[in-house]
């Protein structure tokens, strides 16, 4: 199914869970935070929440800054 991640359209497995998505994207769980449709998704709930088509995700991490 199609979702939007960080502004880019992305095909992901149907009703993929966020935890699975993080693995799918080969990201380090403990380094990122996730917003689903503008609400932060607490890390501990990643296992439970699965995506629907058209969902909008923001996945952020820390970068160099002052």
């Amino acid at each position, binding site marked *: 199914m199609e979702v939007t991640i960080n502004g880019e359209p992305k095909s992901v497995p149907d009703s993929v869970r966020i935890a699975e998505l993080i693995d799918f994207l080969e*990201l380090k769980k403990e380094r990122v*935070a996730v917003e689903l449709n503008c609400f932060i998704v607490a890390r501990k709930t990643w296992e439970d929440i699965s995506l629907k088509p058209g969902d909008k995700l923001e996945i952020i991490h820390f970068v160099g800054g002052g």
Partner: protein
Amino acid sequence: MATGCEDILEIAGQKIRSRLFVGTGKYAGSQQMKEALEISGAQVVTVAVRRVNISDRSRESLLDAIDLEKYILLPNTAGCYTAEDAIRYARLAREAGLSDWVKLEVIGDEKTLYPDNEALLQATKVLVKEGFIVLPYTNDDPVMARKLEDLGVAAVMPLGAPIGSGLGIQNPNNIRIIKEMARVPVIVDAGVGTASDATVAMELGCDAVLMNTGIAGAQDPIRMAEAMGLAVRAGRLAYLAGRIPKKSYATASSPAEGMVAR
């Protein structure tokens, strides 16, 4: 054994070894950044919150380069122009960093990157209520500093000059007044261009200095990082030592008596 080592900075109950806080932006690479952080002696390092690049996984994450046992991360809300955005970034940072500390920036103008103090107060109110340890980036206005204190910030971070300008402390009188009135630590944030700027900030009585471009933008960032670490310690010690008063005329340092006969 050096004097002044018992002089420890404490913010929100956290003891902090070094009074130099450094940013992690604008380095040539993470190896250079690691060396600069190391030699600067800094313990608190600021980071920004940005999107993961999902199309290009190659890029190593900043945190791989920073030993979280050694450094205290201070996420910022750089790039936010509204209270809402700043709050959103602070929450994301907490989620990603598992820490409540935030360097709260709400920018009011693109050319100066000076804060929008109204919006800063709003964002501060919300984030303090949510249990954040808020370290707000503000201008050098003593009235703002007190309002932020009254809202429960852990420290105030007045700017010395525009971010990245390297102009040094433009208004030492305001910084001194802010420090005299403050009941929380005062950290000069932004404007430091060279070592003496950092020393001056500390000599004014400030509790710490935060900088990024002054180090990362130097021709030799590693050497400048070492210089800044020394400069902050020098300024702190000079402040504690109590400088001599300024006089227009001279006073001899060698004795007047005991000259041989003419």
